[in-house]
Structures are given as C-alpha cells and as structure tokens.
C-alpha cells in the first residue's frame, strides 16, 4: 500500500489548483530531477487536457488501483493523465512513516510546512503524533532508554497536550508488550498502527497534497446510503459497506418485497376483533375480540404464518387492549369502558396468573408494562391511574387523571398518559412529578412510542395519525389517508429501523406510510369492515397483522414470489426428479418437478434450499 514515492511522479506544470490549465507539453517542461518510468524516452505520453473534476476522479482511481495492488496500471495512469496522486513531499513523508524512519519523517514535515495552509499548531500536533508512535515503538522493543529520551527531550519540549504526555510516561511501567498494547489501546509496532498513524496525519494535509485514504470507497458508500434512504419500500437489514449491494444498478426495493398481500385469513374469532399485538420476540401474536376471548397464535419464522396456539376465555366485557411483557412471557388484557377488571396471563404456562379487580366502579381500559416486566401501569376514563405489581396489588395511584392511553418510557421512571384534555403528559411515580409533553386540539384515542423512545404516534379522533417528537415536543408529521370519526383505531411503528408506520381505518383498508412522507406508500385492501388495529412484527419485518370488525385477522406479507415458501426438498437417486414440499396459506402443496422445471423456478426462490439426498419413492 505504499504510495509511489520513488521517482514516478512527474512535475509537469500541472497543479490541481488550476482549472482547465494546459497540461500538455510536459515532455519539454520537465524539471531535471524527474525520471521517466522504465527509463523510456521522456515525453512519450502527452497528458490530456482535463478539468478539475476529471483530474480528481483520475487521482481517486489511481489511489484505488494502488490499494488493490495494480501499481503498474496506477503509475501508467498517472503518467498518461499528467496528474499525481500525492505531492512528492507528501509521498516521501508517507514512505518514511510507513518505514518507521522517524528522523526522515520529521525532516519531511519541515518541508511540508510551507505547503500547509493552516497554522503552526497543526505542525506541532503532527510532530506529537509522530513522536508518540516513535515512543511506543521503542517501548515495545524494550529500548527503554531511547523511549525515555524521546519523552524527555522531544515530546515534553513541544509543550503540547501535557496530559497525554503524562499518560504516555505511565506506560513505561508496563511489563511487556501485551500489557503495553492493552493499556495504550495500541495495535503494536507494525504496518497496522503505522497506517492508522498515517490516516491521522493525513487529516492535517490538504487533499491537493495528500488524498484522504480510501476516498473512492468512501464516496461509493455514501452513494449507496443515499440510494437506501431514497428507497421507499426499503425493509431489509443490509450491512454497511458495499459488499452486499451491486454498484452497477441503483438500489431499489420494489413494492412486492414489502408486506402487501394477504398471506393468511384467520377466522377463529366469532365477533368483532378489536386489538392485536405481536410479542416483543416476534414469535407470538395476541388478538382480542368482542367475543370475550384473547387468541394466542404462534408465528412460524420461516413461512411467516400463524397457527392457533390457545384461546384465553372469560373476558366478559370483550378485549379492547393487550400489552405484552418485555420478555414475551406474560400479557395483560384490558376491556373497554366500564370494565373494571384486568387479566394477567402467563403465556408460557398457558394459564391465568391473576385477575385484577380493584373496585367494581373502576374502568381500566389501557395498560403498559414497566421495562423490568415486574410492574405495570393501568388506567381509564373514570380517573383510575394505578401502578401495580404482577399480582395485581396497587402500588401507587395518581389521582385526577382520566386516562385514554398509557406508555412506559425506556428510562424506567416516567409514564406517558393521554388524557381527556387532549394532552399527553408525563408522570413520574417515584418523585411524584408530572409535566406536559404535548397538547392536541382533539382527543387522543391511542398512541405508541417507537423503540428509540423519541417519537410518538398518536391516533387523534377525527384527525388521523399524528407523529410527535417527544424530546422537542413538537408535531413532526400528519399522515394522510385514514378515515376515522367513529371508532377507536390503533396504529403502530414497524419495519427495519421502524421506518414505517401503519394504521387501521374506517374505510376497511390498512394504510402504510414511510415515516418521512405524508402520503401512504401502500393501502392494503381485503377486510370488509373497519380495520381496528394493526401490528407489525418487531423481529420478522416482512409480517404485518390487522384485525377488523369483520371478525377476521389478516396476516400480510410480501408478494408470492418473494416469500420463503419451501420447507423441504428431496432429490431422487438419479438426480432427475425433485420433490418440493411448500407450505403456503395453510395448504401443503407437493409438487413433483423434473430437474428442468426446478432450475427454472430456482430464480424465484430467495433462499438456499436444504437438500438431502434421500431417494424418493414414487
């Protein structure tokens, strides 16, 4: 990774600060100390005339070529273009640093001083960095006296960053190289630490002198990030860096990779379904209905479908709100107005833990778990606002608040409550303090908070879905499209990074928005009556559930061909026939395909099929 500092640079009257200056005739204008490549005739390549942008691009390409080891091409490129990667003094400097030739490096610094346009302070800092590396390397080599000399006679006189000097002097007490490396957080003498040093030093040099390291790669990463941000349906976890994307085509997720089709229709409820929520681990779904039951569904992570696990009965008023404990083992079911009871279920053991019933005049319509999973808050429109433990004992009570909806914040102390005065306020049960967070002009029916604990999504009566910033206490966005005037509708955050927002609506549709845009990016049609609630799976981001007054629960997922359908394959002995068993919408389809058919359908499959070479009995 050494820069060419050994005579391959040509001083040819072109400096990168001149735009469009002529760079031809370098054959005649050479300065005496340049030598041509391979000793060939000077001036064999006449440089092209290029504007500044092209010169910069050529330099970046040259740098990249050097990085991957194509030195000859890089040199040729520099010759033909008449550009240079680094100023020769800088190239020399880099070479000396990488070689560990500190004396020469310092000398180079003096030469570079004239090229540095900033103050002498940066020169001192660069010197400091060099001496620091020199000192650490001496220490690692066991040359204690030399190290001491550096510390005393070279570092200290600089009178710069004396705190650091003191820390450095303490490293003399280290016993051996491992301890030194550990304490100094240093990689040890060698190319790696010297490259890091070079990267630090480079920041002081203007780009005309020395290019920022890996600049082309950095620029391309930025471009890919930009594409991802622009992508409206982007719902997949991709790593940073370029290895997972193609540079040849703009990144663009299509709508079909996004939950947009009904994958399942679940009919287990026999009356209006009012609420649904996935568990925090993404493996279970709970739906609550007017038919007095809560149904627990298991999520299959491969097919992203639900199967009935258990029906929890006995909620005589119906189930209007459900909250999962943070560890997904318990859930609380609340009823609608007038319901004074709360049911706490242990889902792991599939049994009722306790039915909380404090007083028959209570109305407990909302609840939220504390982050430790050992307490929760509940409240309702009659003015009850309690903090309870897992047995249902009331630990604390806040008087005088008519609660529409509750949420416990991540700090483990404050609780947000939407009240009948169109406000959301924050309450601290430990210190008994409260404060205003936001004020709407219309009633706040329900709200949720994103996992970063920064944004709140409100369903406001007759107004739709509003996004508020809890820290700055201001309205960020109003999402358009939802019809609501009559019923209690719930919305949710969802997707990777919670980039999306979804809500039910009284026009029987599910609306999905990208969090940055007011207009919906998808409207899911299928329900035949008001959609009361939606829940986006927090772990399996391709899965969305919605519930409706039409008594059904719908699971939504990506379009058919993007779904992970197949479960098993068996290949016959002769390799001629393949048996694909795919599970799709509760039906198991077995397809016997010839090898030809399999290969043509392979491109629509998105994952590798686990094949086991057992023979098929046909």
């Amino acid at each position, binding site marked *: 990774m050494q820069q060419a500092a050994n005579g391959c640079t040509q001083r040819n009257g072109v400096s990168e600060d001149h735009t469009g200056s002529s760079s031809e005739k370098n054959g005649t204008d050479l300065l005496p100390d340049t030598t041509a490549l391979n000793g060939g005739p000077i001036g064999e390549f006449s440089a092209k005339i290029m504007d500044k942008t092209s010169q910069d691009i050529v330099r970046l390409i040259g740098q990249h070529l050097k990085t991957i080891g194509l030195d000859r091409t890089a040199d040729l490129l520099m010759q033909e273009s008449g550009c240079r990667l680094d100023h020769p003094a800088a190239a020399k400097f880099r070479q000396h640093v990488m070689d560990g030739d500190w004396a020469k490096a310092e000398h180079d610094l003096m030469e570079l001083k004239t090229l540095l346009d900033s103050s002498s302070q940066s020169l001192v800092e660069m010197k400091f960095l060099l001496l620091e590396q020199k000192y650490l390397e001496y220490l690692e080599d066991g040359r204690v006296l030399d190290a001491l000399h550096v510390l005393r006679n070279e570092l200290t006189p600089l009178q710069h960053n004396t705190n650091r000097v003191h820390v450095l002097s303490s490293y003399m007490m280290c016993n051996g190289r491992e301890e030194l490396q550990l304490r100094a957080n240093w990689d040890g003498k060698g190319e790696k630490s010297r490259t890091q040093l070079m990267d630090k030093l480079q920041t002081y040099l203007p780009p005309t002198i020395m290019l920022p390291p890996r600049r082309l790669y950095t620029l391309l990463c930025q471009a890919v990030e930009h594409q991802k941000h622009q992508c409206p349906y982007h719902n997949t976890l991709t790593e940073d860096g370029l290895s997972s994307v193609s540079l040849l085509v703009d990144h663009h997720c299509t709508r079909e990779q996004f939950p947009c089709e009904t994958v399942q229709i679940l009919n287990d409820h026999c009356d209006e379904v009012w609420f649904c929520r996935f568990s925090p681990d993404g493996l279970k779904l709970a739906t609550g209905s007017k038919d007095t039951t809560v149904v627990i569904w298991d999520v299959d992570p491969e097919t992203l479908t639900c199967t009935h696990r258990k029906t929890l009965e006995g909620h005589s008023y119906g189930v209007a709100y459900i909250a999962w404990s943070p560890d997904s083992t318990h859930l609380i079911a609340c009823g609608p107005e007038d319901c004074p009871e709360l049911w706490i279920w242990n889902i792991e053991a599939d049994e009722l833990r306790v039915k909380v019933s404090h007083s028959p005049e209570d109305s407990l319509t909302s609840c939220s778990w504390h982050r430790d999973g050992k307490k929760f808050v509940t409240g309702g429109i009659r*003015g009850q606002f309690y903090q309870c433990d897992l047995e249902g004992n009331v630990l604390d009570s806040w*008087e*005088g*608040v*008519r609660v529409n909806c509750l949420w416990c914040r991540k700090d483990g102390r404050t609780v947000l409550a939407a009240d*009948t*005065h169109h406000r959301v306020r924050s309450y601290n049960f430990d210190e008994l303090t*409260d404060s205003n967070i936001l004020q709407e002009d219309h009633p706040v029916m329900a709200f949720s908070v994103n996992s970063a604990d920064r944004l709140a999504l409100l369903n406001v009566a007759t107004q739709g879905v509003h996004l508020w910033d809890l820290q700055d206490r201001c309205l960020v966005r109003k999402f358009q499209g939802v019809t609501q005037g009559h019923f209690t509708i719930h919305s949710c955050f969802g997707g990777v990074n919670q980039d999306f927002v979804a809500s039910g609506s009284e026009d029987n549709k599910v609306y999905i928005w990208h969090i940055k845009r007011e207009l919906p990016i998808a409207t899911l049609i299928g329900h035949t009556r008001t959609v009361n609630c939606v829940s986006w799976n927090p772990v399996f981001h391709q899965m969305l559930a919605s519930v409706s007054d039409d008594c059904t629960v719908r699971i939504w997922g990506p379009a058919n061909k993007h779904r992970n359908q197949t479960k098993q394959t068996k290949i016959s002995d002769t390799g001629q026939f393949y048996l694909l068993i795919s599970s799709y919408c509760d039906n198991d389809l077995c397809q016997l395909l010839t090898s030809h058919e399999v290969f043509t359908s392979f491109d629509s499959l998105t994952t590798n099929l686990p094949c086991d070479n057992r023979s098929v009995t046909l």
Partner: protein
Amino acid sequence: MGRIFLDHIGGSRLFSCASCDTILTNRSELISTRFTGATGRAFLFNKVVNLNYSEVQDRVMLTGRHMVRDVSCKNCDAKLGWIYEFATEENQRYKEGRVILERALVTESDGIDEHMGDD
C-alpha cells in the same frame, strides 16, 4: 424579557382582567353564572385565553372534591379564578376543562360585532 404574546378571542361582549384590561373571554363562552368564588359571584366559561396555570391542587368544594388549577392573568399575574381538571362526582364532570372567573376580578365591556364564519 421579551414581548408576551396575548391572544384575542373576539366577540361582541368581552371580559377582561380588572387590573390590566387584558381580554380573557367573551359572552358566547359563558356557561353558567351560578358559581361562588372567594370574592363572591363567579362565572363558568368554556374557553378562556391569556392565562397562566398553577400546579394541580386537591380542593373540596360545596359540590364535592375536585382537582383544580388556579389561573392568573398572563400579562399582570393577577389572580382570576381556577380551572377544573378533574371532578370526582359523576354529575360534576361537565366542569372539567372549563374555567371559573370571579366576577369582582374581571370587567365586562363591549367588543366589535364580528361575524364569525361558520365552522
């Protein structure tokens, strides 16, 4: 200190702070005149502007236990009355969110007969 923003609620008969004449509310927001405050007669209004609110206090009144906040003039800080935040009795709930202004602490005057567009 800055310039205090004062809203103007409009209307043809205005009620304003007795100390500094800041407009607070108007006749159309009046709900009931049959209340009693510390200084005597008091009125219940639906919407009142230019107020500062105190912390919530628990108060037992003739009509029962209530949670109220005292209100004062935003401009001159004169006491004006209180706002009901919560009523423990069901039949007192109509007061919640509404403001009591004591008759002696406000003055009534004529406003402009503005025609407000239909909402």
